């Protein structure tokens, strides 16, 4: 599925969505795009959160933004002027959004035209959705071939994920055209196996049973996520950290590999580690 051959299908559009805010969509979009690029796939990650640009910060390219998504949609700049090439990986590109307050600037036809153009150059187009179920979020999922539903093991996040799954099934372009449905993947983030074992947090199985969406991965609650965002590095580039490794596993599964679920059982911590702080 690299899109190299002439007859290969066009790029895959993957929407990172959740309904609820603050569950880790942008972290996931950055990590997933970085993971796909590390695997040799030419990948672009687009920020759909018009007015609240943040992907540039998480990717560490905030000072290189000149033109943005809305400029390209309006024809004020061309695609290659707006795309930012990642300095760590040649396969990775960032497409920042605009800071305009006009949320309706994201016109569906304009988005479609830009996506079609991106499909000529890339294997994967990762769409980082805004929170909510309004115009921006629906535009981000409308053109998706696959979706990653980012969910925390917590009641409000699970409920909002259920809602967004319903919207994917009824309001995506694939649904409107009666095409095969958007491929759904559940990604459980901020998972704390210790709290799960004490009965204080929903288990992976609980969430999967409630949402009945195939599980792509479990990302453990990890200090490395904040560390990565502090420095503007996608956490998947940190393959020392549990969260980074969990994201790389999820990317491998997304590409069709079998990987055992890690980080779902409480870690046994040695007395020394407890005494001298966590690694």
């Amino acid at each position, binding site marked *: 599925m690299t899109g190299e051959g002439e007859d290969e299908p066009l790029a895959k559009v993957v929407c990172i969505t959740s309904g609820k805010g603050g569950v880790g969509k942008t972290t996931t979009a950055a990590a997933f795009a970085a993971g796909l690029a590390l695997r040799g796939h030419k990948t672009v990650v687009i920020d759909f959160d018009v007015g609240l640009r943040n992907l540039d910060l998480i990717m560490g390219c905030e000072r290189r933004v000149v033109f943005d998504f809305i400029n390209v949609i309006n024809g004020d700049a061309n695609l290659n002027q707006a795309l930012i090439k990642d300095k760590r990986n040649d396969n990775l590109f960032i497409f920042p959004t605009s800071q305009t307050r006009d949320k309706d600037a994201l016109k569906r036809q304009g988005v479609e035209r830009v996506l079609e153009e991106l499909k000529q150059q890339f294997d994967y187009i990762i769409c980082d959705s805004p929170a909510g179920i309004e115009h921006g979020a629906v535009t981000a999922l409308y053109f998706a071939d696959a979706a990653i539903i980012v969910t925390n093991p*917590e*009641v409000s996040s*699970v*409920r909002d994920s*259920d*809602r967004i799954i*319903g919207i994917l099934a009824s309001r995506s372009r694939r649904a409107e055209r009666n095409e095969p449905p958007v491929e759904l993947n559940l990604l459980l983030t901020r998972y704390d196996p210790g709290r*799960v074992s*004490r*009965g*204080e*947090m*929903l*288990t992976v199985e*609980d969430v999967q049973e*409630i949402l009945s969406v195939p599980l792509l991965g479990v990302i453990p609650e990890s200090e490395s996520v904040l560390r990565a965002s502090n420095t503007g590095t996608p956490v998947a580039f940190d393959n020392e950290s549990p969260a980074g490794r969990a994201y790389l596993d999820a990317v491998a599964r997304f590409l069709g590999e079998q990987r055992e679920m890690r980080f779902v059982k409480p870690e046994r911590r040695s007395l020394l580690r407890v005494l001298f702080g966590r690694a």
Partner: protein
Amino acid sequence: MGIFNFLFSPNRNSAAVAKERLKIVLAHERASNSAPDFLPKLQKELIDVVARYVSISDQMIRVNVGKSGETSVLEINIELEDAKPATFIPPRRAIGTKRPAAQPAKPG
């Protein structure tokens, strides 16, 4: 005291409570989010049809989609206030495969 709290604290299995609450609320929300797109139109057309035979106002017809076990049930409630004694046969209250017997509409 510490041990006692740890063992008998009401928070000890809050995850199970969360799961139960989610199951109930989502079952309800899925039912109400999944079907209702056509309901307003159906309701309007029903009013048009019924109004040809009896005098009826908008509020006197209620259309709902609900769940009864595994079966979806389309429930149509038509209230007749000053039903003209025409050849009109009162509609059945519910259309659903699992309903034991349909009840006649409430007389006004």
